């Protein structure tokens, strides 16, 4: 890149409105809309035996009540299985409104529409639904035991048995000098964006068209789903993601029942209808992630080099599988991380439980895979009395091994071939940044203060920017303004800024002239969505290609006007100039005017493009064959496969043996996402990811009781970290540009969250000398673990105790 803005910490353009209260989030739209509220199941598993709406009829302001009986055609069918897979042999999805059976607390049964939300909720609470309760399955272990079935016709509760292998693992294990086997567990958490989901729909009865605003990560596909489900022609439906108050994955799922039902009501009633999810609804009716039971067997040699790895995972997918087996696949394929695994076999059994659905939450299966692999590294090091960093180092893929083919199939159906990276480099930087070699000294210092100190690390490789494609449109107006559009959505990643930086750099225009629109199907109808750390990679490159197309056309027109060769032209500050010939220039805005031959002069600028404005070439038509009016270009970026970012985290914890409070005193991050568009934004993504990683390691869990009731469905009980819980973060960067895309970038959105659980588990284990095999871990659980005589001690602890290094 030759220009100044790419790679600069440009201050965000979206902030101007957001810091003065002028953002426009879903619930800020449609003050006159009718409000929807839902009657949701209070039971985790039940048959619905009756719905009595009589009591609601007395509520002044009630407008409509919908149940499954009101759904016809495609709406009466189950919601789509968004990502089918041959190994997803027993997919199940719910209905927009329950059809006779509910499979988790929070499943929608009745939609009430009223003049405002208060009244809608008044009416909803007067609707009496009667149930016949059924046996409840909660948790992977119960699902695996299958004493009962979540879905009657699936007696083993197994939705999918995903498996991949790179060789014959059994003989490889048998031939390994050493093996060890263990099982470990990781609990659920959830995206929990500060803004829940929400939908606003407005039907234009005259035009027979529908405009829907949704707090979504995938407006184009929401649009397609609404059109398909409601039987509307695609061009009669527009979907817009307004300012979205965070997503982290939950808003990539679609169509949520409400995304179909709110438009249905708007059409049926001929009035605007809106639904804004409340916090409890978000806990019980959106999506969670992360719960897995992992059984791992690893073969390795005396130096700690892995010879074979055999992993069997039970993955809790909740009540339904609308998002297919993406999370299991990601766990299975990203588990191998930055390491050479000579023979690998993985089976992920995705099982049904009577709980909220499980779909990607930032990291999307990677934190679990990282937890499996990195804890394996820790165990090998412990067994061999080796430094944990050394064991990792010996197993790393080396810089000269790229592209590195793991012979696995990724979540996009493409091979897992690492494009570039420098994993030894990451590890070296991490050791320096965290002070790995000084750990023993720190431990002794802490011990002198009566504290237990431990250090841990974890490395990861993250497939980012999966296809199939994204597109970009760049248009220069006669005013000089540059309009940029891409179809994927924004939830706080600063796309308006980073995409503007790309265009300003590629086109040579002031960033002030660039206006970026995302997630609006009116502006760009083709897109996939914002997930898997793909926005910068996918839309960034598509927009860059579109800008290059505009540049090429601008230079072609300018070359005509300036009677120069396009090769001699440059664009800077929005002006095309003959290199080295001052005064021989033409503004881009003028080229934009000239690019569109006109008959009518609607303003001063337009005069220049009218038919009598200047000498024309009578031998050619005003618009040449193959050309098009306007200074604009639309282009797409479709990658051959994902690009692979990487990183390494380390944590130092101090534990107070009186309270067993776990304090992260240092958290170090080394991060490689290739070329960086805006380092300020990337660093912000890392900060936020780490906070969620810490949250998942120490605080957040979904406390289901055995009846399938979520006991902590509020911010009072679900311990989302405040500032006091998030450690300071030291960050170092490395850059191995991706050879796969024009800008050389890799995704950065999810990275920060991935190694948190693994690194912190490692550090706690190092501090207390007890094997940590279940995460997250609370002070109470840690206390119970330490005082339990049956707890497994680490070899390192035994050795340390033996030498008196630790009291």
């Amino acid at each position: 890149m030759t220009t100044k803005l790419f790679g600069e910490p440009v201050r965000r353009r979206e902030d101007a409105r957001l810091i003065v209260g002028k953002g426009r989030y879903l619930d800020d739209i449609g003050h006159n809309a009718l409000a929807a509220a839902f009657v949701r199941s209070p039971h985790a598993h039940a048959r619905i035996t009756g719905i009595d709406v009589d009591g609601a009829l007395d509520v002044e302001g009630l407008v409509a009540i919908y149940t499954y009986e009101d759904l016809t055609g495609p709406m009466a069918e189950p919601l789509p299985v968004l990502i089918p897979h041959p190994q997803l042999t027993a997919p199940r999805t719910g209905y927009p409104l329950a059809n006779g059976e509910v499979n988790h607390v929070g499943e929608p049964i009745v939609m009430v529409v009223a003049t405002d939300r208060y009244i809608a909720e008044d009416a909803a609470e007067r609707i009496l639904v009667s149930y016949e309760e059924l046996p409840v399955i909660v948790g992977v272990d119960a699902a695996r035991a299958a004493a009962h079935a979540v879905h009657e016709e699936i007696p083993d509760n197994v939705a999918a048995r995903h498996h991949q292998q790179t060789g014959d693992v059994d003989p490889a294990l048998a031939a390994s000098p050493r093996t060890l086997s263990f099982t470990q567990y990781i609990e659920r958490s959830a995206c929990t964006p500060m803004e829940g989901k929400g939908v606003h729909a407005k039907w234009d009865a005259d035009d027979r068209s529908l405009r829907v605003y949704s707090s979504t990560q995938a407006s184009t596909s929401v649009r397609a789903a609404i059109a398909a489900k409601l039987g509307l022609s695609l061009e009669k439906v527009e979907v817009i993601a307004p300012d979205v108050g965070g997503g982290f994955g939950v808003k990539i799922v679609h169509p949520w029942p409400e995304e179909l039902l709110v438009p249905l009501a708007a059409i049926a009633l001929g009035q605007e209808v809106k639904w804004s999810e409340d916090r409890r609804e978000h806990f019980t009716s959106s999506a969670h992630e992360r719960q897995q039971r992992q059984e791992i067997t690893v073969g390795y040699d005396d130096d700690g080099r892995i010879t074979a790895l055999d992993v069997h995972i039970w993955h809790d997918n909740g009540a339904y599988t609308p998002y297919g087996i993406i999370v299991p696949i990601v766990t299975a394929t990203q588990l191998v991380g930055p390491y050479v695994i000579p023979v690998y076999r993985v089976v992920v059994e995705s099982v049904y439980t009577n709980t909220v659905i499980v779909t990607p939450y930032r990291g999307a299966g990677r934190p679990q895979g990282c937890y499996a692999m990195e804890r394996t590294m820790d165990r090998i090091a412990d067994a061999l009395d080796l430094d944990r960093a050394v064991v990792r180092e010996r197993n790393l893929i080396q810089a000269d091994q790229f592209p590195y083919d793991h012979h696995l199939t990724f979540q996009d159906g493409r091979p897992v071939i690492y494009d570039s990276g420098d994993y030894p480099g990451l590890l070296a930087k991490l050791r320096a940044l965290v002070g790995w070699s000084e750990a023993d000294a720190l431990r002794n210092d802490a011990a002198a203060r009566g504290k237990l100190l431990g250090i841990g690390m974890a490395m990861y490789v993250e497939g980012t920017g999966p296809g199939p494609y994204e597109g970009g449109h760049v248009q220069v107006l006669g005013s000089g303004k540059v309009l940029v559009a891409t179809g994927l959505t924004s939830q706080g990643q600063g796309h308006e800024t980073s995409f503007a930086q790309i265009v300003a750099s590629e086109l040579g225009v002031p960033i002030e002239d660039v206006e970026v629109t995302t997630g609006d199907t009116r502006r760009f109808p083709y897109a996939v969505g914002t997930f898997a750390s793909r926005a910068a990679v996918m839309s960034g490159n598509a927009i860059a290609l579109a800008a290059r197309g505009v540049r090429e056309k601008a230079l072609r027109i300018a070359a005509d006007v300036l009677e120069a060769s396009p090769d001699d032209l440059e664009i800077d500050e929005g002006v095309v100039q003959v290199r080295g010939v001052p005064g021989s220039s033409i503004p881009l805005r003028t080229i934009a005017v000239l690019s569109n031959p006109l008959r009518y002069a609607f303003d001063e600028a337009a005069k220049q493009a009218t038919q009598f404005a200047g000498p024309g070439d009578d031998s050619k038509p005003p618009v040449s064959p193959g050309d098009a009016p306007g200074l604009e270009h639309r282009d797409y970026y479709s990658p051959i496969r994902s690009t692979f970012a990487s990183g390494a985290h380390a944590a130092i914890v101090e534990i107070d043996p009186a309270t067993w409070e776990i304090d992260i005193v240092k958290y170090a991050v080394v991060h490689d996402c290739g070329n960086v568009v805006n380092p300020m934004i990337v660093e912000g993504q890392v900060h936020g990811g780490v906070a969620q990683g810490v949250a998942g390691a120490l605080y957040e869990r979904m406390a289901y009781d055995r009846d399938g009731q979520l006991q902590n469905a509020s911010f009072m009980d679900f311990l989302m970290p405040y500032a006091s819980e998030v450690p300071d973060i030291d960050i170092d960067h490395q850059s191995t540009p991706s050879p796969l895309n024009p800008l050389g970038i890799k995704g950065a959105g999810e990275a920060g969250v991935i190694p948190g659980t693994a690194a912190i588990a490692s550090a706690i284990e190092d501090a207390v000398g007890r094997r940590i095999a279940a995460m997250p871990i609370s002070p109470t659980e840690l206390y119970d673990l330490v005082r339990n005589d049956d707890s497994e001690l680490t070899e390192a602890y035994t050795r340390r105790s033996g030498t008196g290094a630790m009291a």
Partner: protein
Amino acid sequence: MTTVDTERTVTVTVNGVPRETTVPVRRLLSDALRHDLGLTGTHVGCEHGVCGSCTVLVDGDPVRSCLMLAVQVEGRSVTTVEGLARDDHRGGQVLHPVQEAFRECHALQCGFCTPGFLMTIAAGLDKRDPAAELTEEEVDDMVGGNLCRCTGYANITKAVHSAAAAMRDAR
């Protein structure tokens, strides 16, 4: 049979402007600000007073507007994020130092929690002696009660320091 809410007319000064609105007595202040007065800068993140997104100032003190009824602000003065910047008397606005600092320090991502942080921090900064050294305890007080899911707080804390420094320099 029918539930007809008792309504009450509330007279309140919002962002320096006297406003009058008739609301059901059960209407939350947050909803009244957002839906009756059209001030949607105040956001509702949890509806149970934990996240702080809905924080506004009532007579200068930060309150959770989702835990307060609109009728409770009768005769009082409410400041929302829309009223945080000051009129520059030339047709524009002068941002509060904490607003400037949030942008400068990248202290927001999705922006949903931001108004609550801005109001809480602005109240804290405006009440202190700008010449005094800003302590970590003060910063913790100003940021420690609000939830943010995007930023990890590091840059919010940085913004508080930055704003305090700007207020010290501007003194």
